[in-house]
Structures are given as C-alpha cells and as structure tokens.
C-alpha cells in the first residue's frame, strides 16, 4: 500500500465533503452516490417483490446480492484506484488467460459456455470480469499517452478491445461482448479520438449494416430487429415479449394500477418479469410517474458519476470514471428502450433492479472504483 504515500489532500475539490465529509473520506465512501444507489436498490426490491408474486426467497436472495455488492464496493474503494491502474496490465493478461481457459474447460449455462466451475471456489464468468478490466486497461493505456490519441495508440487500443470481445463471442455471449466493447470504446471516445474518425467509423458501420443484415445476421436476430418496427409480424413468437411488455406499460397509464395490482405481471403475461422485463412491471404498477422517478434516480447517479469523472485528478481516473458512467447509462438506456420497444430485444438487465446477484455485484464494484477515485488523493503527476 505504498500508494498512500502519494495521497494528497485536495481542499479545493469538494466543499461539502471538506467540512463534514472527513469521516466519509476516511472510509472512502461518496455519500451522494451511496444514497442514490441504496434508493434505487430499495425501489428495485419493492418492484421485485411484486414481480415475483411475493416470493420472499427471491427478494431475500436479491437483498443478499445487494449487501454483498455494497461490501465489495467498500473493499474496492479502500484501495487507491492507482493500485488497480498499476495492476491493469497484469489483470488484463490474467483476464485473457481466463477467457482462454473458458474455451477449454468452460461450463455451459443459459446458452452461453462462459462459466468456470472449479472445485473449491464459486463458479464465475471471466467475461463479467472483463467488463471492468477492459476499460481499466484502455484507461491505463491511453491515460498515460498524449491525447488526443495517435493512430497507432488507437490501433493498439482497438486490438486490446477486440481480443477479449472475440473470445467472448466465441463463448456465444454476444450481449456481454457488446458491453465489453462499449466500455472500452467509451474510454477511447472520452480520450478525445478525433470526430472525423468517429464519424467515419459510424458511417462505415451504417454502410456495412445492411450487408451484415443481409448476409451475416442469423435469422432470429433479423426477426428481433424486424419486430422493433412491427411486433405484430410474429405476435406469438419474437414479437410476443414486446407486445405484452408494451401492453403492461401502456395500461399502467400515468399513475399505474397500484402496487401489486399489475394484471399483466401477476397473470404471467410479461415474460422475464423478474429480470430483463422488470421495468414493465414497474411501469404497470407505478405508471409513468414511477418510471420518471426511477429515471430521476438514475440521472442523479449519472450526474454524480460525471462529476466524479470531471473532478478526478488525473487522466486515468477521468477516463475510467467516464467510461463507468457511460457504461452504466448504456445499460439503463438499452434495457428501457428494449422494454418499451425502441430497440431490439437484447438480454440486458436493468441495473440494480433486475433480479440477479452477479450483475449487481459487478455494478457495485464499478461504483467502488468511482468512490476510490473520488475519495483518494491525486497521484503525484511527474
């Protein structure tokens, strides 16, 4: 822990935590972020209780996931983020090794062969770890180089993003691969990659997408995309989820049907009502006001995270915090857009609300990094 030597108090950065925040600073916790996260988690538990038809086991397990997540967040935030920075390369290498190991001894669950199940330790997904390690790695790589990044740095960054992504795609877990790529890409975007490269890349994607759609996209993906434009093309198959979800949201109206009164969810019309489509349950029972409240909570988290990124003391921290913020937003937006029928159905959870302990712990670890960035001093820069 020789990093502590480099910690330097920065009285300018935060007036509030300066006065009353010394205790928070000591425990390396950011109170606004913590309050926001706990509020969302409580709201999530409330919705999950209704979505699971009052199944207390489900709710208790979710609560346990949250507690473990918060503990993990605390542990992570105790370390200066630069500890992670200095370990970035090693962690990246270890991550790649684990991904390669998955290819050999991986266990399949839920269609993706992405689990490592070794005796003595809980089974886990190396791809989940890469969601944190990839932005860490790119932030380290670009943060220590002059910005905006030069072409060769971009090239290496792209390679560092694509290698794990390809390994994850081979595991048949496209959703995670996309999120891993996005988290790396956000670092590159924040690092100041030139707009013309961004626009060129975007146009290239735009031009390539019809070709991809026509020649490469698997049939079930095509149908999912088509159902965004008209769910009634396949009302009992691919369009079913989105139709039922829209009925739930729409029938919720402004004020909702009331807690526990969602007919769509309680009569099992909403598929995946505990996980990916939990927003439909929330929208049906709490209405537009309920969703707006949730969006406000998320916005609060995003604002606070952006502020942490903005006020971070070095480029590595900024890039990492920015990437975590944007990735978090990405989850929120993609899930909400998918449930309300703006985007094709991709299996992504609604952060901190959807049932699933692993995802929650991952999110809290990310917020642990943010808190570490916020509460540890600036690294002495050359």
């Amino acid at each position, binding site marked *: 822990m020789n990093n502590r030597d480099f910690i330097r108090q920065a009285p300018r950065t935060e007036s509030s935590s300066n006065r009353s925040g010394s205790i928070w600073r000591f425990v390396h916790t950011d109170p606004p972020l913590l309050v926001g996260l706990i509020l969302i988690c409580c709201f999530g538990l409330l919705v999950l209780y209704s979505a699971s038809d009052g199944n207390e086991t489900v709710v208790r397990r979710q609560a346990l996931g949250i507690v473990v997540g918060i503990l993990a967040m605390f542990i992570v935030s105790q370390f200066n983020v630069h500890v992670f920075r200095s370990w970035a390369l090693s962690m990246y290498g270890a991550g790649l090794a684990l991904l390669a190991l998955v290819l050999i001894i991986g266990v399949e669950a839920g269609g993706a062969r992405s689990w490592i199940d070794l005796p003595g330790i809980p089974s886990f997904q190396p791809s989940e770890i890469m969601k944190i390690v990839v932005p860490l790695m790119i932030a380290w790589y670009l943060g*220590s180089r002059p910005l905006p990044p030069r072409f060769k740095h971009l090239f290496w960054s792209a390679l560092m993003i694509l290698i794990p992504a390809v390994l994850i795609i081979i595991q048949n877990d496209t959703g995670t691969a996309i999120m891993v790529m996005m988290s790396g890409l956000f670092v590159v*975007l924040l690092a*100041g990659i030139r707009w013309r490269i961004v626009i060129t890349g975007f146009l290239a994607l735009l031009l390539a997408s019809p070709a991809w759609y026509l020649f490469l996209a698997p049939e079930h993906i095509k149908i999912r995309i088509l159902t965004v434009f008209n769910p009634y093309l396949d009302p009992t198959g691919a369009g079913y989820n989105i139709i039922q979800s829209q009925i*739930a949201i729409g029938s919720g*109206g402004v004020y909702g049907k009331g807690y526990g009164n969602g007919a769509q969810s309680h*009569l*099992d019309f909403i598929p995946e009502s505990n996980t990916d489509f939990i927003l439909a349950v929330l929208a049906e029972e709490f209405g537009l006001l309920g969703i707006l409240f949730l969006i406000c909570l998320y916005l609060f988290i*995003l604002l606070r995270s*952006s502020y942490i990124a903005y006020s971070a003391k070095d480029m590595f921290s900024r890039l990492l915090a920015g990437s975590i913020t944007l990735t978090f937003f990405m989850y929120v937006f993609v899930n909400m*857009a998918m449930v309300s029928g703006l985007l094709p159905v991709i299996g992504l959870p609604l952060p901190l609300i959807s049932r699933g302990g692993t995802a929650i712990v991952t999110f809290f670890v990310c917020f642990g990094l943010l808190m570490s960035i916020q509460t540890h001093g600036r690294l002495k820069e050359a």
Partner: protein
Amino acid sequence: MVGKWQLKDHEAEKKLFNHRLVVAGVFIVVLFAALILQLVNLQIYQHEYFTARSDGNRMHSQYVPPARGLIFDRSGNLLAENQPIFTLTVVPEQVESFDETLEILNRLIRLTDDDIEQFNSRLQRNRVPFSSVPLRYILDEEEKSKVAVNGHLLPGISIEPQLVRRYPLAGLTAHSVGYVSEINREELDSLSDAEKENYGGTNHRGKTGIERTYEDLLHGTVGYEIVEKNNRGQVMRRLDRTDPVAGKNITLHMDAQLQIAAENALGDFRGAVVAIDPNTGGILAMVSKPTFNPNLFVTGISSKDYDILVKDEVNTPLFDRTTNPYPPGSTIKPFLGLAGLHHEHIDYDFAIEDPGYFRLPGVSYRWGDYTLRTQIGGGHGHTDLMKAIYQSCDTFFYDLGNRMGIDTIHDFMAKFGFGNNFAVDIAYARTGVLPSREWKMASRGEPWYPGDTINSSIGQGYMWATPLQLATAVSIIANEGKVVSPRMLKAVDGELFEPIIENPMPDVMVNDSDYWRYIEDAMTMVVHRPFSDQFRDYGTAYESIAMADREMSYKMAGKSGSAQVVGISQDILSSSDIMVSDLNKDHGLFISFAPAQNSQIAPQIAIAVFVENGEHGSSVAGPIAKQVIDTYLLDILKLDFFTVEDTPHSEKQVRASDE
C-alpha cells in the same frame, strides 16, 4: 517513460476530456428524452388502447352450460339423469407438442385409438379459439390424480367437472326416451345464430326420441361468466356471472315398471309393445326389442361398438319397431267390421256360409282362409260378424271388404289414425300405408284392382301400420269413438302439459252407438270364448290367455293377427347365425284393451304387441299383452276386480252368443 509524460499537456487534455464529457451528457439527455417520449406515447396517448388490450388478455367471457332437464316417468322414477363426471380436456392452442402430450397421457391413463379418433373429429368442428375440447370422458379418481400430479408436464390439458346424461334404464328406454350425443357439424350449421349462442357451452344435443322432441324444453338457457385467466389459461378468479337457466324437468306418461314388464314379457323375441292409457292418450309403455345401450352414445360411441349395432342385420337394435310399420294382418278386422255395420253393408244378423275360401264373381282365383292351411282344412261354416271376429274368419272380411270397396274402407280406417301420425310428440313415427286408389296411382302408377281390396281387408297387401298406430286405434275402440291423441309428455316442471293440437282428429261417430258394445263383445270373445262342441267356435286367443289363466279376474278385449313376412334380404337368408326358417315365419300381432265389459271401470289400458317372426298372434303376442295388462291393472293400478261387482250383463251376453 519520462519522455512520454513530458509530452502530455495536462490542461489541454483536461479540456478535451471535459468537452467529451459534455457531449456525452448531451447524448444522455437526448436519449432519455426519446425514451420519455416513447413512454408518454405508450402511457398517455395509447393508454386506453393498451388498457383494453390488457383486459382482453386477462378477461375471458365463457359460456356456462345449463343443466339439462331431467326426465321422469309417471311415478317419479328417473328415466334420464345428469351424472357428474370428470373429463380430460385439451385447449389445442396451448399444447406445445401433441405427440409428446399424448405419449405422456398414454403412460398415465389408458387412451384408446377411439378416444384419439373421436378427439380429432371434435377438433374439426367449429369452436371458439382457446376453448377446451374433450379428449376422454369419465376419469376415475386414480386417473384424475395421475393427470393432476403431472399437470406441469401437460400444458393445455386440464380436468373439467361436467354433467353428462345417463339413462338408468339403459336399453329399456333407448328408443322411446332416446338419447343425447355430441352435436355434430351439420346440426351446428343448421342452428340459427341465437340458437348457436345458446349452445355455446353445450356439447350434447338430443338425437332421438323424447330427448330430441323436447330438446328446447330440456336444454335451458346458457349462462355466461367473465373470468380472469392467467397466461396458461388457468382461471384465477371470477369477475362476473350470469347464471344459466336449467332445462325444464319433464314427466312422461310412461311407467318404468310397465316398461320393464313389457320388456320381460317380450322375452327373447324381437318385437314391440305399445301401451296407451285410453283416457288420456298417455303412452304407458313403448318398448322395442332388441335394443342397445343409449349411454354408449352420450360420451361418443366407439366405431367398433357402432359397427356391432349397425351390422346386426337380423336384430337391428337401432331400429325402433314401435314406430315402424308392418302389415297389421287380422288386427284390423274389428275396425272393418265396425265399418260394415256403420255403412250398413252388414247387420248383427248377417251371416255367410264360409267354405274356407273366397272368390270374386267371374274370377277363378280363390282367396283362401287361413283355415285352409290347417290339417283339417275347410271353413267356418255359418259365420256372423261376431264369430268372424273371434274366429278371425278371413272369408267373411274378403266378402265384406269387397262389398264396401276400398274407398269406404280407406275413409273409415283413416278415422282411427291409420295412414296418419297424430301422436302429439312422436313426430318421428312413420305413418304406414292406408292404401287408396289415389295412393296406388301416385306411388305405383297403377290403378286399384278389386283383388287389392280383398288383400287389404285382412290387413295384408298394401296395408301397413305401426304398433303405435294399432295401439292408438284400439284405444279409440276402448273409448267408444273418442279420439285422444297419443302422447309421451305428461307434465313440465310439475305442471300438467296441455298440448295445443292443431286440426284435432274428430271423434269417430257411428250410426248406432251399440255397435261399439258389439265390437267390444266380439273382441272380448277373442280372449274369453271357451272351447265348445261347436266346430271352430272359440276365441282364437282363448287357449293361450283365458284358459291359461283361469283365475283371471278381469276381462280383456283383443284381436290377434299374423302377417306374412314380405321381403327378407338375401344377405340375411345367407347368414348362418339364424335359422332361415325363423325369418320366414309370420309376424305375430295382438291388440287389446282392458278391462273390457266392466260397467264399473272404464278401459284403463290399450295395447298393441308386435312379435317379429312370432308366427302366431294369438299364442305368442296374446300372452305378452296379457302379461303387460296384468302388471298394469293388478300391480300398478292395484285394481281389485273381485270386490268390484261382476257384471251379470256381460256374462249374459257371452252366454247368449254361445247359444
């Protein structure tokens, strides 16, 4: 490393980063705005639409079938009841794989090929989407629990409680009460929209007999309920309900005890018994044998069972012998004699000298009396109408028929319901044939020949009548001309049924009402005139009825008949199951009413017995009639004829004729 660090311009980089952060913020705001717009669209602008869709998802209106009315006999015994059963049903839309489901079900309970075949035919019918289709009726407790336990493996399969028809007397009422069976496609298509609605929850419909005739009374009115169903089609709760109106309970004139007695009396014979209460026209018994188990039809008869019923060409169990016509033979003689008296072709003193045959003037063909076929041969000698009836003298009626002519015969016989069906509620009964010149020209394209009249005079030739018609006609004699239309239905929900009869048959009027007494006496002698020194001067049924039961406490009036078997198909003749000679035998008939010649008690029962290939009306059909009448008068009505003062008047009559 140090070189690289020196190249960094920290302030510029921070500016660049902050700039990017702002751009990201703008993106976030724009995307959230888009999301909120979509939510506003869904939750405000399309709120009503989606509310309706949500209700449509969960709320289902379903039919509640009414309970079918029960059918009772006159003393309150159930003839048709509703039995609660558990039925295995399928909602085809919810079944993922039929083959898999059937395989699992087959392991749990026995499903025959017939079950599956019938299920497939039910699937072909019109049905409301997501409504359930019966796969197998009547699950026992064990099967029920096996299916219930494995419910999670069987999406779309459920067990529904249901009421189905059951006929406690089974075959005994198969033809008269009839049966219900599943509605078929043609029946559904023939229903009006309102009727279709009323049958929305009903699987069954009366197919034959009373069940069909009074379908409208028995069915009731459908009810509705709105239920909330979950995604798997399970009913979670009931939101609203309009109760169905159960069908009306109906009571028949039929007496189960008499029905049983009639069936027993027929024994192993094929044949029919129809008994009518002459006072009301109520049908007391209506038995056709051989019969079948109507309960088989209720839950869908298997093609194997059905084949057995249909392919039995000798016994034809599905064929209702009570309402299908046969040559009535000599049973029409009392009516013909009455016609002769009424039209004054004969009187009480008129007599012929019977040589045993009849010859039309100028024609060499001789119409023989049945006595010619006996060992002794010869005729009846001096024969008046009374003797012609109790001895069943053909020659007398050949002569009388010939002199009356077919037109007179037709018009007079028609008054008794021959060639007509004026039963109130047995519309399916055949009318038989009461031949006339017009009828022959229309159906055969031939003129009427005098020889046709001769044949018709003894109930042969073109003359055909159903046992129901014969029973009706004899009840008119018992009533001395008063016509009461035969009927099955006695009461509806306990209230006496008063049918509105359009164009009621007028009562039969004769010139002298003493003719009725005369015919009654003649018919009584058929049963009661004993053997005497006189050659051929006893009642044809005396030996088998009155002599067989010397203790007989009442008198019955009767007339026997035998009818030649007209056509037997070659199929049957080549069948090895039955003696061909049996099928060549004449049909035996007997009509009767009782008590006769009783000044205290009016006739209580009129009956027609038909025995297929029974050979003799008097010795085979007669005792059957006697047995049925015994049961009715002595066991059911419990009439005590010993305390009722015997009528010396009628005794005298018999004796007077003896001399």
